[in-house]
């Protein structure tokens, strides 16, 4: 039975439109920018009427940036590859370490358990700059500066707490007796974990993994300090568009569009998991 009046429907429509415009306008604007030259972008007054060009995209993909001051080499595609590699590997490692840890924190009470879990969470609210100075010194002496392994390691600061805490809530929501019922039917602890606990927590694990991926993908400061050009992800790579002959707005816009595509596609695909996973982990009786 639907009790909403026409006024309510109209009002709701208006509000939804407002929210959508507010959030989607920047994305739409960036997309339009990516199809223009610097001249048309910077003209006054701005206009949405222009002849679209794909030069910005070709420049990014081929790695040749031609400006008024001459030609410039770009390694945007390398940056893109770095982003994918760093994000995927960090999330994979975090899942490997975080899911069993989350299970342990959810199921077993052990000495200092809560303190360890809280310490892990605290990585999220310490400013990255705080850890960067000592970290860069350590990394230098350990030879981890400008290595994928070093970066993936540091990215655990972003991914691990997220996965640990979201998945932990999820495991806590599963009645331990479901696992007990499986164990008493003659199955080992490990089999129960992999056959019962993980499948039941799958939406939560997917949501946490996705969020961690987005956070890792968007990270800027770690790679800026700890890696040089050939290992840096797109977030840092975009700095290259601030050139001696001015800021290349068109290329920046195109770079943004390309770099948000994977996360956007992933988020759209897993939207259901994301909403379900986050709300179920968060709302507890």
């Amino acid at each position: 039975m639907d009790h909403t009046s026409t006024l309510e429907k109209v009002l709701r429509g208006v509000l939804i439109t407002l929210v959508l415009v507010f959030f989607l306008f920047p994305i739409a604007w960036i997309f339009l920018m990516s199809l223009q030259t610097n001249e048309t972008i910077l003209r006054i007054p701005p206009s949405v009427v222009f002849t679209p060009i794909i030069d910005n995209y070709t420049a990014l993909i081929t790695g040749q940036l031609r400006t008024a001051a001459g030609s410039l080499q770009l390694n945007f595609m390398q940056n893109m590859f770095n982003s994918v590699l760093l994000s995927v590997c960090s999330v994979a490692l975090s899942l490997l370490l975080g899911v069993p840890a989350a299970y342990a924190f959810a199921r077993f009470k052990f000495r200092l358990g809560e303190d360890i879990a809280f310490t892990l969470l605290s990585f999220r609210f310490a400013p990255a700059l705080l850890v960067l100075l000592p970290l860069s010194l350590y990394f230098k002496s350990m030879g981890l500066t400008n290595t994928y392994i070093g970066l993936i390691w540091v990215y655990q600061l972003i991914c691990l707490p997220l996965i640990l805490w979201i998945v932990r809530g999820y495991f806590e929501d599963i009645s331990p007796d479901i696992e007990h019922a499986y164990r008493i039917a003659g199955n080992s602890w490990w089999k129960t974990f992999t056959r019962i606990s993980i499948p039941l927590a799958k939406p939560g694990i997917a949501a946490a993994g996705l969020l961690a991926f987005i956070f890792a993908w968007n990270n800027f400061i770690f790679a800026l300090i700890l890696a040089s050009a050939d290992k840096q992800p797109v977030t840092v790579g975009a700095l290259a568009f601030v050139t001696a002959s001015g800021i290349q707005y068109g290329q920046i816009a195109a770079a943004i569009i390309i770099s948000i595509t994977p996360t956007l596609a992933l988020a759209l695909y897993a939207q259901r998991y994301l909403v379900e996973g986050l709300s179920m982990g968060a709302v507890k009786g």
Partner: protein
Amino acid sequence: MAELVLSKVDKIYRSRKGDVHAVRSLDLTVAPGEIVALLGASGCGKTSTLRMIAGFEEVTNGQIVLGGKPIHALPPAARGVAMAFEAYSLYPPLTIGENMSFALKASKLPQAEQNTRVKAMAEMLEIADILNRYPSSVSGGQQQRASLGRALVRDAGLYLLDEPMGQLEPQLRAVLRGRIKHYLREHKCTTILVTHDQTEANALADRIAVMEGGVLQQYATPAELKVRPANLFTGTFIGEPPMNVFSAEVKAVADMVRFDVEGGTTLSYPAAEISEPLRAKLARTPRVALGIRPHALHLGEGPVRGKVMACQWLGDQTHVAVEVGGRTVVSVSQERVSRQPGSDVSLAVAARDLHLFDPETGMAIAHGGSLA
């Protein structure tokens, strides 16, 4: 079918806020094929006991031996025990039927045999029509029966049932009790059943272990628990409505034994109705706690005077609440009795219906005129 022996089993839950001694030095033997109910109020240690036997809780002290083999250090999978959980705990991604056959998969029975078993079990529990549904789409009672079926369908040395029928409607519960008892008998299943419902314990169990405060109070047949309660706790816990209890002074006058009950009532019995050893004991015991079951308190004749407070005919028995010496007692009679509230009434108690307890320790002194 196996014998279960618990000896000196302790369970202590340790936490920063202090230790909780949930089960204290529990000794319990369940004969092969016997059905035993653990009965007690919430928090009495009955579920902790069950979970220790299943292997979900560590045994702090003592040992558990099943079929001659100590099992308290084994993982749950190696104990050969089947269990039905209070919260059902069905696997959400599987149908009711798959849930029930799940446990059989490990047993390496041929598929056809597994199907027949699950089907027979489902028919017995009246869930055959929902075998293809998912747990989230069926009612709590149906989930509970599926969970019970999942446990019973297995071949196990011991069956543990935690509140197996708590969610069922009364009619179905009565029918299933009979069927389940028959099934357990026929398959000679050694079974431990945890419940707080005495009707269920009485109907299903061969013996009942009454627990309170983590201590086993009495372990006996349902009839014995009623007729010869070991202490004041079992006396008042078992039986519905509960036993009336008074404190009384014992006087031996000539060839009579007299109880001066609190509130000024006196009960006297000819010495012949009280056994010789008991009279000797009572001579040394000036005060007792006197317990009288409601059905032993007869209305209409006798030395006890009281005032009717309420009178209710339940269709098969009458409950009459009577005020005697400032205390309310309950009398149950099988006939239809109509008494106006406020009217005077006389009550009688036969010597064979008296339960005497030590007022300090609560231990039984005598039942029905002879020593406990």
